[in-house]
């Protein structure tokens, strides 16, 4: 299994769903950062990110979302995070990011939050 994997899916109404799997650390974060920047360059700022397949995240990984949410919100969009495992959610909690990011359990709820 590769250490890190990103699946990209277009949703209706100009939204994109990213599903990330594996380990998001200082070795892999640039791949996600590039993917999100490419989506922004296409003029899409409404992103849902499914974290259910993510086994581990460090601050380098969380930093990708910190760096991107401002750009998304300035352009009338947002980043909604979905279904983090307890280990991954724990890191967002430790960083005090759980109050800043919106978490949803289903893609419907994430899409509604992005409307």
């Amino acid at each position, binding site marked *: 299994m590769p250490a890190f994997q990103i699946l990209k899916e277009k949703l209706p109404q100009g939204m994109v769903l990213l599903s990330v799997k594996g380990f998001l*650390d200082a070795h892999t974060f640039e791949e996600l950062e590039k993917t999100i920047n490419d989506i922004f360059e296409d003029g899409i700022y409404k992103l849902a990110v499914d974290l259910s397949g993510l086994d581990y995240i460090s*601050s380098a990984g969380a930093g990708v979302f910190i760096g991107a949410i401002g750009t998304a919100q300035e352009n009338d969009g947002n980043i909604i995070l979905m279904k983090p495992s307890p280990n991954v959610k724990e890191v967002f909690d*430790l960083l005090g990011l759980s109050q800043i990011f919106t978490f949803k359990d289903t893609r419907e709820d994430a899409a509604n939050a992005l409307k």
Partner: protein
Amino acid sequence: MGESLKDRLVVSNDTKHLIVVRDFVSRLIRASRLAREEENKVILAVDEAVTNIIEHGYDEGAEGSIEIEVEAADQQFKIVIRDTGRIFNPESIPDPDMKEHVQRGHKKGLGIFLMRQIMDEVRYKFKDGVKNELTLVKFIR
């Protein structure tokens, strides 16, 4: 347990080794008395410390090595991380204001904050022979 459990790992300054470091720490946590709910956090603290050394300790392209020594005793789980990179004292870095961090889109500088949040002790020492030594301790209660 009585006796302490001890092991060490040496890796070069490349982020591709972070997974090896995490597996090493995980194995020792599972062999120790540390509660399993602390596992993810302690692994994270070590990852953050090693990541900081890889990213800031050496000039770009310069090779360096990082030693991670773990000692698990009855009362504490201790990790000592040594490197020969530039002097870096994490005690000099203040905790971030997270709201401001997000507003400014700052992506870095959170590792030391996490280390302090997670571990009971974070001690830094610069040793003669040009070595940074960072000690992370989690008490076992």
